[in-house]
């Protein structure tokens, strides 16, 4: 079978792997590297459970081939926390109860983080629109919007790395 060399940085660590070029990024992340925090909830790029950041941008990792991430910086949910210190968005999710079953949470956190990177002080309308690609069946989204809003308002400044 055809194998290509993929060089990719995931959560700050550089990896070199030989993969079938048809492998999706989400498969490399979950099955090859074992970062199972990233989930999958559909086959139609509709749910956002697999959202990661590539060079700071939110990307649904089921929608691209792993080879397209060659040479890039990928951050998964496991990359948010730093030596036991939670990222502000993680703290905000805890404080606002922004998760229930937790299956969409990793994708929501990554989409939220990318959103705040691009727009550090979003309005709630902008937050809602920014999370349009991520489905949650449990929370009804409002607690997630409140958490992102709180970070945007600077309420977790002291937690900022």
């Amino acid at each position, binding site marked *: 079978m055809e194998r290509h060399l993929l060089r990719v940085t995931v959560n700050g660590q550089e990896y070199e792997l030989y993969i079938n070029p048809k492998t999706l990024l989400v498969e490399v992340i*979950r099955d090859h590297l074992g*970062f*199972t*925090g*990233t*989930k*999958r*909830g*559909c*086959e*139609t790029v*509709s*749910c956002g*459970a697999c959202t990661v950041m590539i060079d700071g941008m939110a990307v649904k990792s089921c929608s691209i081939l792993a080879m397209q991430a060659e040479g890039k910086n990928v951050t*998964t*949910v*496991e990359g*948010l*926390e730093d030596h036991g210190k*939670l990222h502000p968005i*993680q703290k905000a*999710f*805890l*404080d*606002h*109860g922004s*998760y*229930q*079953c*937790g*299956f*969409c*949470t*990793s994708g929501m*956190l990554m989409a939220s983080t990318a959103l705040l990177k691009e727009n550090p002080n979003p309005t709630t*309308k902008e*937050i*809602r*629109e920014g*999370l*349009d690609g*991520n*489905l*949650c*069946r*449990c*929370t*009804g*989204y*409002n*607690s*997630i*919007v409140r958490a992102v809003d709180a970070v945007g308002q600077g309420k977790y400044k002291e937690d900022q790395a």
Partner: protein
Amino acid sequence: MKYNILNTHTHNIDGIAKVTGRAQYTFDITRPGMLYGKILRSPHPHAKIKNIDYSKALALSGVKAVVTGKDTLGVKQGIWRRYSELCDEQILPLEKVRYIGEPVAAVAAITEEIAEAALDLIEVDYEVLPAVYDAMEGIKKDAPMIHEGVERNINVTRHIEWGDVEEAFENSDYIREDWFKCSGQAHMCMETRCAVAEYTPEGKLTVWTSTQAPYYMQALLAGVLGMKESDIRVISHYTGGGFGGKFELDGAQFCSSVLSMKLFKPVKIVYTREEDLIATKCRTPMYYYVRTGVKKNGKFMAREARVFTEGGAYTSMGATALYLTGFFHSFPYKWEGYRYDGYRVYTNTIPATSMRGFGAPQATFCSETQIDLIAKELGIDRFEIRRMNGHTPNYEVPGQATIASCGLEQCINKIEDWVKSRGKLPANRGIGISSYGFMSGGIFNWFDTPYSFSSAVITVNCDGKVDLHVGAQDIGQGSNTTLAMICAEELGVRVEDIRVHSGDTAECPPDLGAWGSRQTLMAGNATKMAAAEVKRQLLEFAAAKMGVNIVYDLDIKDRWVHSLARPERGLDYFEVVKAALRGKEGQRLMGRGFYTPHRKGMISPAYSYGVQALEIDVDPETGKISLINCVTAHDCGQPINPLGLQGQLEGAISMAAGYGFLEDLPMEDGKILNPNLVDYKLIRAPEMPETEVMEVETYEPEGPFGAKEAGEGLTNPTAAALSTALYDALGVTVKQLPITPEKVLNALREKEKEGK
């Protein structure tokens, strides 16, 4: 009563695991040597299986086994175990398939791709049979028979009646009748159904699965596999959503187990989103006929409802939904006479079952829509008509239910104030209201278990830290946190002192699991009882040490063992634990608790109540509805975890509003037309309205610390409030869910025609 723990802002105890991605779901499980399974599904809604030839599939490199019904014991299973005639589903049927998507064979291979490829190599010879897809067609005399010997496809019937219904109609000044149709709905858990089964030469089976009720899975698997329950271990530490769709045995659990038992290897099956949509179970679609008689002044006299539910191919929890919809159609009002006749009809469609609200959202939609029409015709205020007829504390629903706590009237008043505070609305805006109520767990033992409905075991270690073992299942609703809070409050320690063990039948006592809004009350009572037992043991030692007269003079609060009369006199909790352990020859302190409801009527030990107002904006040109505000006044007794409660409320609104105007399972010849997340629409973040909850605190004598149901009932009012909001905005009603733009426009055209 002032509590240290209850009703305080508390982080979910599983929260850090969830926000760091460490929480391991069944979807994430891999085992050494694990194989991957795939299921071949019926393309026909109704067909005899004449022959299955899988020799080519088995010959494919990487394929390890193929199984069909012939490799099973052929047990007809069902969750209503008490009634054998309702156990009607062979997963991997031997003789015929009854819906599109039904499993007919399963493959295990070294990769998912190979297993998938092998499915194409299986040849099934079907004899296609005539099929029926609609309850009203299925019940006809000449309809195709779906289950042998079941005349007119009537699977279950239910009759509920009290009072003299005929006399109550005769004494009515105004009678109204309406037909409604309520659609199906997919649970759409973010984690699709999945299982990893591992059978080992010891003759033991371990199954990791995404479930709401590990004990049910253990017992049901034992039944279909011919094993002892205790030789099966079901593990489900994290469940990616349930909503009523994950407490019956599914194809992933059964087929992975059968394959694993054949191969002595772990086998994993994960449903695709399409499989999860077409081949599981869904909210029960219902036809509702409602006739209601009232007095001129608005007093409710009589109601008669006839309901035909589209059962799909098998009984499942649909039998319970048939009962509950009939009961909750009377809710939360008093009737002189009430009669309900429900018919569950088999059809060649996806089996219909429980889904959050369990028949009550359908019942509430029909009831509340009609009540607004009645109020309008009689010129009675819509709040007044609800207040006049609503349940009150200590009311007895004749022969059915004994209500203890009930805050309905306060809820009506609060919502009335809020609606009035909105003043005059702009054009095309409307506010709908809906009252609702729900049970706190069911009473009837249809599962036929000898175990208590809930149980808990508490162990206190020498350092004072507490292990709480419960069979209750946390599926995201936060029951582990709720039970930890109840335990901490009763024992007098902090939430961080408690480690909750759940989701593992080998470690935890049996419990019926997370459905029917039962856990806060039932598992909560069991937990409280176990904690009280431990506390009593601790206070024995403390009393001896402190020299007080009687044990009950002491209490523990926030790790301080003290005299009630003089709280400053006391001992450190951790020191007392150490002393107590020494006094017991080093044995850890243990407490057991259990709960099974007794003498509480036919339905439930306690009922939640509430009223919801939903403000919407309707575009009369397109018929498109936008949700603006949703305000709920809610009586769940004593709130335990306010953060969790708010989450339950908002989540319920998104799901129930979706049911009201977006979600549907359209079919053509038994085939679901939107089996993916592109065509099946869920509410997304921009569509969610602003939400507010106003708690009305009552004290429920049957609940732990006065608590009752707080999660599922919140799904009941929203579709109804959407319907009444449309009526408020434009003066039209749509009697068929979901209320789509097309139906709104049709209703507007109809109204225009009538006006001319």
